[in-house]
């Protein structure tokens, strides 16, 4: 009986993982970016890149989303909203930081209105570097995140040590 139930559980686990990997709905939040990353994220939707091939859809409501795509350094005013958006998302949820600013603060390090990079505010699962990353790179980053999901591992977190404040 127990074995049987285990088997069913395993199977259901496999099915849900499969569904999760094949249908990551994303929501996009700009927490202080210059817009460069944002237009490249938007470009991934369009015919040349067509992210819907992977089942990825950009949704408007955080309640519907699985992946939070963040761009830009986190400004003091946006911090609250970023957290709120994250909290509104149902589990399981993942965070992808796009662009140099999101990863390290980029050129905006030391500016007075910046809280820091995204992983100072949220637990980030994948980093996509570039200023801005190309649409291909963004797709690649998300697909890599999905591959980790499939294996049941979280991507290795990278600890970034910021330069001294300018």
């Amino acid at each position, binding site marked *: 009986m127990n074995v049987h139930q285990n088997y069913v559980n395993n199977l259901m686990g496999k099915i849900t993982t499969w569904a999760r990997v094949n249908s990551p709905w994303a*929501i*996009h*939040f*700009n*927490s*202080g*970016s*210059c*817009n*460069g*990353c*944002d*237009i*490249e994220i*938007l*470009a991934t*939707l*369009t*015919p*040349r890149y067509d992210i819907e091939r992977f089942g990825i859809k*950009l*949704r*408007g409501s*955080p309640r519907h989303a699985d992946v939070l795509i963040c761009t*830009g*350094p986190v*400004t*003091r*005013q*946006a911090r*609250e*909203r970023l957290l709120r*958006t994250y909290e509104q998302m149902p589990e399981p949820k993942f965070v992808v930081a796009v662009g140099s*600013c999101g990863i390290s603060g*980029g*050129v*905006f390090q*030391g*500016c*007075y*209105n*910046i809280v820091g990079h995204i992983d100072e505010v949220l637990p980030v699962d994948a980093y996509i570097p570039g*200023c*801005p990353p*190309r649409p291909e790179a963004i797709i690649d980053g998300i697909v890599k995140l999905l591959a980790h999901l499939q294996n049941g591992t979280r991507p290795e977190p990278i600890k970034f040590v910021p330069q001294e*404040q*300018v």
Partner: protein
Amino acid sequence: MTTETSLKRATEILAPFSKGNANPETNRLDVDIEASDLPAATSALMRNQWGYLSAITPTDLGKEMNKLEVIYHFCEGAAITSLRIHLPREDQPDIPSISDQIPVASFFERELGEMLGVHVVGTPDSSRLFLPDDWPDRVYPLREDFSVEQAAPVVPRATLPEIGRVGNKFTVPIGPQHPALKEPGHFEFSVDGEIITGARMRLGYVHRGIEKATEKRNWIQNLYLLERICGICSHTHTSAYAMGVEKLAQVEVPRRAQAIREIIAGLERIHSHLLWLGVAAHEAGFDTLFMYSWRDRETVMDLLETLTGNRVNYSIIVLGGVKHDIAAEHSRSIHTALDYLEERIRYYLHIVTTDASFLQRTRGIGTMTLEEARHFGALGPTARASGLERDVRIDAPYGAYHYFPVSLITGENGDLEARFEVRMKELLVTCFTIRTLVDNLPPGELAVRFPRKIPAGETISRVEAPRGEAFYYIKSGGGESPLRIKIRTPSLCNWTSVLNKAVGHQLADVPMLIAGMDPCFSCNDRMITVRRKNDLQTFSWSQIREYGIRKYAAVRELK
């Protein structure tokens, strides 16, 4: 009217208030006035229809001078008149407001109050607007002795908006995270059913404090920092900055470099307008047009990548010239790409002016008359769609536009349709300009040697961004980094018109209205602005109703 006669006229108009005149550059007039004379001087300029308010630049002159400096820049064609006011360097010195005469000024006055700690007497709204909610009182980032430590977060003054239902009216928040906005900005529209009765705006979600940061970086580092003000019009910012610094350093940029800068600027305009076309179509729920225009935009992106090595932040400009040359094989691929693009742009022009279902969402929506456009201080295609002839490339040619002039495109109706039309036609002109430039690239060097230290002085450079006039005020103290850089981007000036126009429209039209002016939050948000609920400012209640009824009649006729 030539620049000289313009300036002469301004000297005469301002003579009663002047405490001293100067001509720092051939196209500029500097007039020192007392703070108390400001409203009178402004109204004298306005009465004589001399130009429009382009920017207000707040500067702290430092401990030695012990003064704050506030400059009001008015532009007419290439002529710039600056009203220079000195205030005592204390907490909250008084300066009178001019926003009753010039609506746009209220935005700039907010900046003054928040960033420099000046008390603007009589400004419509003096609440916290510039900086985050948790910013401490009496800490002003633009003061010389400001440090990041002073700005430690305090308990926020304002709380997040409550879920609002006042009687039968709702407040609908749009943003900061909202699908219609690819970037954060916060709007609150009070709606009665589907009709908008009031509009408020809070920006600053992407306020990073770039202006202050420029003072800590050297001239060359700033080039790359300023490029990242905005990913869509990055070239505009670098070229405006480079032009200003080159003027200060008295370096003549080789003609070939100027031409290459303008080619890139043209390609940027194409990419930006196609991007805008797609986003606006998406707001209207016409996703196919969004997909098509973005597909064609990739052609420009490829071209930009071929020429500069980057898709978004091109960084082709160096101080004193450009990095990369345009070779013969490049010009061939530019021509091929433009052939394709011109055909597509003509097709889009056809769509936005003839497609019945699209016109239903654009024709007669957000109409702004010529007078309103002038009154609200609109810029760029938004202004030109109302027939206002305002284009820096023509009024005050810079760089290669001296030798390769562009023609002015204006619309008549001032509604969304006209804005679509103007932008698409502008693209055709841009394609033509690029072709001419590529075919007639002047021979010569790509860049000249550039000094590390820039001689002391101040200058103004204006560049026509895809969205309108970008205004840079650059001040050097003779060192390796600037004393002060003030940037005023076109989106900021266009907000006034949009928020005023939203009242009386349907909620469904709002995303289109916002998209119609092609807003750029990251440009704006080196600073923050809040707009007070202005339903009673320009419209009385009965006027709103009347407007709403008229609008409905128009909708009915359409069907």
